[in-house]
């Protein structure tokens, strides 16, 4: 039920691995904010939200591999928001994107996930 038929799950599998990488990095960002949260009350909220988001991304990655449509939709939404924020922040003179690592993490990986999710949907359509 609510399961997408797919002849080729490679695109979804690769996308899920990239989402797990993103979730792991988010988890570390959330955990790293905890020491600062001791004296900065706003960061307590941000740390908890980030850790919960990382957990949600791991859950979405798992369900994407299982072919759940809702996981696919949520991930498309998350990656689009992530890319839009990156595009917006890179326009500001605050040095958000400086070098290959932020380029890979904030631009290449979200774009790759979106492309793979699109390929996964076209596979599913082809199989239907």
């Amino acid at each position, binding site marked *: 039920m609510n399961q997408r038929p797919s002849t080729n799950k490679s695109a979804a599998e690769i996308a899920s691995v990239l989402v797990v990488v993103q979730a792991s990095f988010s988890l*570390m*960002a959330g955990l790293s904010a905890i020491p600062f949260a001791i004296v*900065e009350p706003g960061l307590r909220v941000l740390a908890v939200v*980030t850790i919960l988001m990382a957990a949600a991304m791991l859950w979405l990655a798992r369900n994407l591999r299982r072919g759940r449509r809702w996981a696919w939709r949520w991930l498309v939404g998350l990656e689009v928001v992530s890319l839009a924020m990156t595009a917006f922040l890179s326009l500001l003179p*605050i*040095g958000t994107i400086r070098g290959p690592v*932020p380029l*890979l993490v904030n631009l290449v990986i979200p774009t790759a996930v979106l492309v793979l999710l699109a390929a996964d949907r076209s596979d599913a359509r082809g199989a239907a």
Partner: protein
Amino acid sequence: MYDIATDHAGGLNAALITLAFGFVFVLGLGLLAGRRVAWAVRMMQVYDAAPAMTKVAATLMLLSGGIHLALVPGHEGITGLLFVIDGLGFVGFAIAAFLTTWWRRPAILWLAATIVAYIVWVVAGWETPDQIGIACKLIELVALGLLTRLANPTRHTWPRRAWRAMAFPLMACVTTLGIWVGGLAHPDALHAHAGALLQPVAAVATPDQQAAAARLLADTRASIARYQDPAAAILAGFKPGPASSAEPLRHFENKGNAAAVLDPNRPQALVYAQTTHGLQLIGAMYQMPRAGQWGPDPGGPLTQWHQHEGICFSPFGFEFSFETPFWTCPVGSTSITTPPMLHVWIIDNGKEGPFSADLDKTVQRQLTGSS
């Protein structure tokens, strides 16, 4: 906090060349197969038969191999030798992925060993983490994740499935932590403290530079003396930054002075300390208009500018945390790099001196009455 080391810059070119080579190779193979060249047809059949995950994993291992081999000239001794072995190993596994059935497990071990070795090298201080090294670990992590997904899950019992689900995120987290610990434990000479990059300067100040530094201090002290009362500063256009229990120093910024460059009459900010009897003026801060644009340093090494980078800034409450080595911040905050700044402390700043990036901790404790 993490830049591209000069001797690692070749790694970036190697990655691009390897990618272009791989693309042209497959394209050429396809063209030859189209013309019915027997060996090309066979190779193309093998390539086409491989799952997409294998192709991506092989490409990533080839990339890592290319980067390692390109970095050999900049690494001497055992590290250089390991780079050769590692690079050749990755190239070998990238080829073996299409020709053998046994390549997956050895490749997983090779990737895991490479990542662990990097963490050991970084934590031990034998290698400084930079963006090329971190990007290479990112490539290897993704390859590792793909290879773990290539296994057949139906044969596994639940503990193995749970381990399979947890091992990869755990590896990614340990890698992040390892690079972070290494970077913080062994900062390079230009990092005064976590997040502050110092302007490169000569080691020793000349007599002229010493005189210029003393002049800058005297001019700044004379110019900002009129702002001892914070109300006078506010009247002159300086806006107080948000108060925070975590930060006893408060910066009053004047956007009207943004274009001025090291002008004692128009400093970009005034620095007050939150003492038990109110705000006390302790210095001025000069700031350049753009990130990466170092200011004039009349005092040479005595007036060394610094810029803050690798900081996660949260606009909700004006709070900060540190960015991870993979450039991620908590949700709702963003990575920022400030334009270079130079503090001039008009009070006795102890061992740190009048132009240091930070207020001397002992002086700060005396001022704020905190332990």
